[in-house]
């Protein structure tokens, strides 16, 4: 999967546009999560506009790659990505968390095209992704399964049950991307429930481990390609991200895990994000 400089720039700009839309949508919703979705914008841009083999006009296409969002609470960035990709009109984004909306507070399969599984309660996405990956083998399908997950949900026992199973079954059509942003609701992950060394843990469970800067498009794409080329084990990509990335007063602050910006804060955030776009353009000039 060749990645040209112009494509990298396009994906970076897309990520930034999506951050802006995300702020606007969260203000309108009046509740929801800010930090995680901002931090994952680059990864979502890379997936929906480069990595995934999918067809927004035919969301049930049998051979599509499957993206399973395990940490369902960051769904606003997935919704923004789906709308940008053409699964539904962008206007609908503003119904997020409102009555009668297809954009539920946490994603629900069947409500909205492009949602592969229902999630929200943490730690179960990898299990479901394994089921989808095993079904691909049984059905002799070549699609790949990607499971995006949070670091905090590694507190759940169910997660490690699934980690053991994927290694036992040598599930090689599955790649996990962990958003290692070091925050969860009650504080920093290492204070709430230490995860380090996360790399050593996965290696001890017989996974291939890759670590990347989760804001570098090229690194994301390279890691996914490396995972694809690995046949003997499942791969986890530990993506180091900055929660709230792009909005200085949210960056790294766990207080922004589970709340939306107020209108004046969103204004401030949008101002910053718009200047960031200029910076990205500048870097590529």
């Amino acid at each position, binding site marked *: 999967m060749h990645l040209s400089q112009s494509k990298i720039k396009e994906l970076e700009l897309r990520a930034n546009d999506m951050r802006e839309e995300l702020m606007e949508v969260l203000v309108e919703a009046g509740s929801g999560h800010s930090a995680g979705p901002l931090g994952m914008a680059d990864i979502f841009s890379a997936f929906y506009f480069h990595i995934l083999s999918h067809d927004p006009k035919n969301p049930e296409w049998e051979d599509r790659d499957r993206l399973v969002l395990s940490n369902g609470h960051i769904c606003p960035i997935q919704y923004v990505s789906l709308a940008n990709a053409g699964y539904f009109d962008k206007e609908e984004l503003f119904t997020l968390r409102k009555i009668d909306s297809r954009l539920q507070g946490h994603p629900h399969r*069947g409500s909205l095209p492009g949602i592969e599984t229902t999630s929200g309660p943490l730690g179960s996405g990898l299990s479901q992704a394994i089921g989808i990956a095993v079904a691909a083998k049984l059905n002799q399908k070549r699609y790949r399964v990607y499971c995006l997950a949070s670091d905090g949900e590694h507190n759940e026992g169910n997660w490690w049950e699934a980690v053991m199973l994927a290694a036992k079954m040598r599930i090689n059509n599955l790649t996990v991307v962990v958003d290692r942003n070091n925050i969860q609701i009650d504080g920093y992950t290492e204070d709430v429930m230490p995860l380090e060394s996360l790399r050593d843990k996965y290696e001890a469970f017989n996974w291939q481990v890759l670590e990347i800067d989760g804001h570098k498009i090229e690194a994301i794409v390279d890691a996914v390609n490396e995972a694809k080329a690995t046949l003997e084990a499942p791969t986890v990509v530990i993506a180091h991200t900055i929660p709230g990335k792009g909005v200085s007063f949210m960056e790294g602050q766990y207080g922004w895990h589970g709340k939306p910006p107020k209108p004046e804060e969103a204004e401030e955030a949008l101002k910053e994000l718009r200047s960031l776009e200029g910076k990205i353009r500048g870097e590529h000039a």
Partner: protein
Amino acid sequence: MLNKKVYLDNNLFSDKAKQAALRDGYGEGLFEAGKKDPNVVALCADLKDSTRSNFFAKAFPNRFFEIGIAEQNMVAVAAGLAVSGKIPFVASYATFSPGRAWEQIRTTVAYNDANVKIAGHHAGISVGPDGATHQAIEDIATMRAIPNMTVIAPCDANEAKKATLAAAKFVGPMYLRFARENTPIMTTARTPFKPGKAEIFYSSSRPQVAIIACGPLVHKALVAAKELEKEKIKTIVVNSHTIKPLDSKTILEVVEKTGAVVSVEEHQVIGGLGSAVAELLAKEKPTPMEFVGMQDVFGESGEPEELLDKYKMSVEDIKEAVRKVKKRK
């Protein structure tokens, strides 16, 4: 007398009544379902032999998945298989699945509308010597409370097999409840079985009380009905194998005829079959009712029959409940 239209086993009241375990019916049904439909897959949590998943595992090793002692993972993996077109059956002891995996069942199976069949084994107090930790007596309640979930408790091994085969054809989440011990065979190959359709197993002319039962205790209900004839107490016995959706038509018909109800189940009286019947009657036809089942307590170790006696689910207890409710009419 026994309802001839449902072709019950003629020996069911005799000492020679055949016995078999419901879990054997599951094992045979799963194997046959697997033969009929290549999309049927089975998962187990380190209880392959005990849940009788072993016949399927041996015949279709590529479609059987040993998940280890990890029921939450087993259920959610099954959900992933189901959203990809497979028909997964997950089996464990009911105290563990659905017990421990309740939230995964709620979110990844029921709300996700995944076509997963949950087989809860060793249900009821009759598991015996293993004691209260292994006696699932709340599983009907916890499954019944989840939207989009069908709940079935077969009465004998033959019906367990039919229910398993029906589950493979049925599209949608379903909970199936099985017991460990050998229990009397009541039904035959010709006895009708359809999810959602209760069957009248026994009826007398001018019945005074309807006994609505599920699971192996249906046999004790039939024995009680027969013995009560000697006291000139006339009853109808309904095998309400599907607890959700309840066959309200059949139940309202028998209640119309009798005006009094006794529910019988090897389950807590809170939230089970009796509760489901009471919810229906409170809305449609308020009727005096007695509840035979676990009275909001845990069980203990012991032999199955000793436990059913001690915790008041014996033939005598059913008879006493019938006499009591008859007086309340």
